[in-house]
């Protein structure tokens, strides 16, 4: 009986892991460094249908892109070096067939009459400045972990635990610094 129980648990965890791997295959994350700043281009294909459906249905959507620069350590807890959170929001107006797109980080607002544009506004993040390479140590290895939090509505109304459990992992990319990029050397 105990063996069956352990087997079922292992099966559950294996399936969960397989699902997570499948999710990661549908995300794209690219990192590039310009003028000593690490920029990230990220796009999720998994969420497009869902976002499109929500926006066409007239519901607002708010997304937060979370970029974490982590040291490559195995056991230490203080892995995080820098963390950037960028928010975007789309508020549909169905009767006038316009979608208001708001960048929560800069406050810039504009309208679009194309729902696909609004969808891409939420599912893509281009040229997001993540960290200045000058604060990074050239002797260590770093990687960038990206997570996407999607909230239906104008605010994150699901409570604090949604941040812990509701994030969609966009994958992890190792930061490769070309020579003479202003890295800190000790």
């Amino acid at each position, binding site marked *: 009986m105990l063996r069956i129980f352990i087997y079922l648990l292992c099966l559950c965890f294996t399936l969960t892991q397989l699902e997570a791997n499948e999710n990661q295959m549908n995300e794209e994350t690219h990192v590039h460094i310009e003028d000593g700043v690490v920029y990230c281009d990220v796009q999720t294909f998994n969420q497009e249908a869902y976002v499109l459906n929500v926006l066409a249905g007239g519901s607002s959507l708010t997304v937060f892109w979370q970029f974490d620069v982590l040291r490559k350590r195995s056991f230490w807890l203080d892995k995080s070096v820098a963390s950037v959170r960028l928010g975007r929001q789309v508020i549909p107006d*169905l*009767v006038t067939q*316009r979608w208001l797109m708001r960048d929560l980080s800069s406050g810039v607002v504009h309208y679009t009459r194309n729902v696909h544009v609004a969808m891409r506004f939420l599912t893509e993040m281009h040229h997001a400045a993540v960290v200045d390479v000058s604060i990074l140590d050239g002797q260590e290895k770093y990687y960038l972990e990206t997570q996407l939090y999607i909230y239906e509505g104008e605010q994150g109304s699901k409570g604090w635990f949604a941040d812990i459990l509701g994030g969609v992992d966009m994958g992890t990319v190792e930061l490769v610094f070309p020579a003479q990029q202003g890295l800190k050397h000790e």
Partner: protein
Amino acid sequence: MSESLDKDRLKPLVWLPFVIATLLLTVGILSWPSHDQFGPVFLNWLTVLLFFILATVFFFVGIYRLKSTKEEYAGSYLRTKLVAAMVLMVLVPSLLLQLTANQVIEKGLDVWFDVRVDTLLDKAMSLAQGFYSGAESDMEKSLLQVAQDDDFPLEIVTQPLGTMLISQHLGKLLDQYGWHKVELFDVSERLIAMASKQVAGQQFSDLKIRDLSDTAKLSKVLGKQAVEHEVRKSGEYVVGYLPLYMQQRFVALLRAEIRLPDEVTSSARSIEADYKSYRELERHRQGIQEIFTHTLMIAMVIITCIAGLLALFFARKLTTPIEELALALKRVEAGEFDVLVPVHAEDELGSLARSFNSMTAKLRQNMEMLQQTQEELTGALVSSRQRQYVLENLLSNLQSGVILLDQSGDIRLMNQACQDLLLIPESTEKKVSIFDFSEAHLAPVLNFFRTLKTQGLDSLQYEIELLHGFQTIKILARGTMLGKQEDQLFSGWLLVFDDVTQLAEAQKHQAWSEVAQRLAHEIKNPLTPIKLSTERLQRRFRSQVDHVEIFDTCTKAVITQVERLQRLLADFSNLATLPKPKTEVVSIRSLLQDLRELYSAYQNVTFEGLPDGDVCCDPDQVRQVLINLIDNALATKTPVRVYVEVTENDTKFYVQDEGSGIDEKTQKHMFEPYFSTKSDGSGLGLAIAQRITEEHDGTLLLVSAASPTRFCMCLPHKLILRGLEEKKA
């Protein structure tokens, strides 16, 4: 056996909590909330938490059950079964209810999200959108018409500022296109003219001059008319922007606005809100179903838990008296009769407990009585056993043979001495009745009993002889009736046997000795003068008689007969005054060597083998016995064999002849004194030989009566030891 069967039958119940725990854990994992979960995720987490807690509880219940199974305390199985039954009674309807509710919810959602509703909402939405797009289209058309009027830019350029002409023109446009407000801005985006209509519900703030919006600026920059939709506190507006050019020079920007009717916009917004809500619900249809399912599931789990706890409470209440009864029964089984079961209630179980207490009290009383009786019986038995022991010891040590017979002649008791005395072989079947004495030599015993029984004598005593082989045993038999046959106290007969062979022999010897001594005394005395007188007569008167031959014959006959009488008397004297044997350890070889030399003249006497070894005896007396036996054998005038056989316990001297054998009558009397088959024999040879052998604790037997006739003198070896000890002493 039945207990083990019950245990086997209940084994699956032991594993049941673990199965339930696994099922609950699986359901908990399956209830894990998804990312696109509609509504509060709290319910999902609550469900998961509940299932996990329940799984943990069942896991520990399982471990507790396993432990309690090993301990096997009474009532646990019954309690488990009761709880399981009650939980099942709640769980099964709850599950059915859950399934039914799920079906109902699914059907309800199908009705709710009916395609007709969907189409209707789409159409309503299209209508609202058409209204808004119509208003914008009208605005665009109006602006296009205004743009085609070349006089208006000229008028703006030529007419000085502050004149009413431009305002009048704007008023005309207002009326012509149905606008509610029109404004004109110069190159520097300053308001140079304005015309408006009084609209119901217009607020004071609406009269305030508004800055140009981004769309207006874009229109100005691009030189293209633009229309936008503005939502203000006072209502919703469609605003159009038209840049006015004169000879390709920007002269002014016209802003026209139409206030959309409130009732229409509110209806459109209401449609939009409903559409939005509907789409949201449609999108989360699965989630809604899950909310209902989870709510029902939580309710079911809580109800089941409450039912389980209640079941446990009632089962405990119900099984506690049974458990106490079972424990009490175990104690009673172990022999404790002072057990009292508490009476908890005035119901059937209480009645059972009272009955049990009453039963144990009665059992206790009975047991006390039984113990008392047992003690008395034990005392009596001990006393009886002691008596029996004494009697058995007495009987076993008794030289006399004793047989106790019951009324039917069955043997109740027979001591070892009796068996030895009556020569009952041990190898034969055990005698159960006196009538089993079927052996020939036991016939006198059976006759004795029959006489006693048939004649109904109180007691009977006479001497019987048992002939066993060549042995004749004289036994004094005494029989006594135990009780009287007329009474109920009659219990059988007691037979007592005593071996009187030696006594009779001794008495006989004694008698013969006395006779011999008297005869010797009375006859021997006159014999000598007779012989002397006869010899004197022979010497004195032989020459004087006429018939010398006759005289010689007569005198010789007298002398011979006197001599024979003297020898006879000497034998008598020997028999009467046989001395005690003077034993010593003698070599068998030397003993036989003497005899061989003695009979060396006889050709027909052969001594076979001269074995080594010693024998303890009086050599003269033993020699006399052997001479006696050899003489008797020589009388047959056949070859005589003398040989010795040394066994572990004794030395056997055999004397064998090949004569015609000994008849039965002779066998019976040959060891008696004065019995002889010879005309000139005294008949004392074998009697003396037997007496000498007996004096040596040995036996003289006729081993074979038929030809070849064989006598055996058996001398035990124990005499050697005794002789050695005497020698040492």
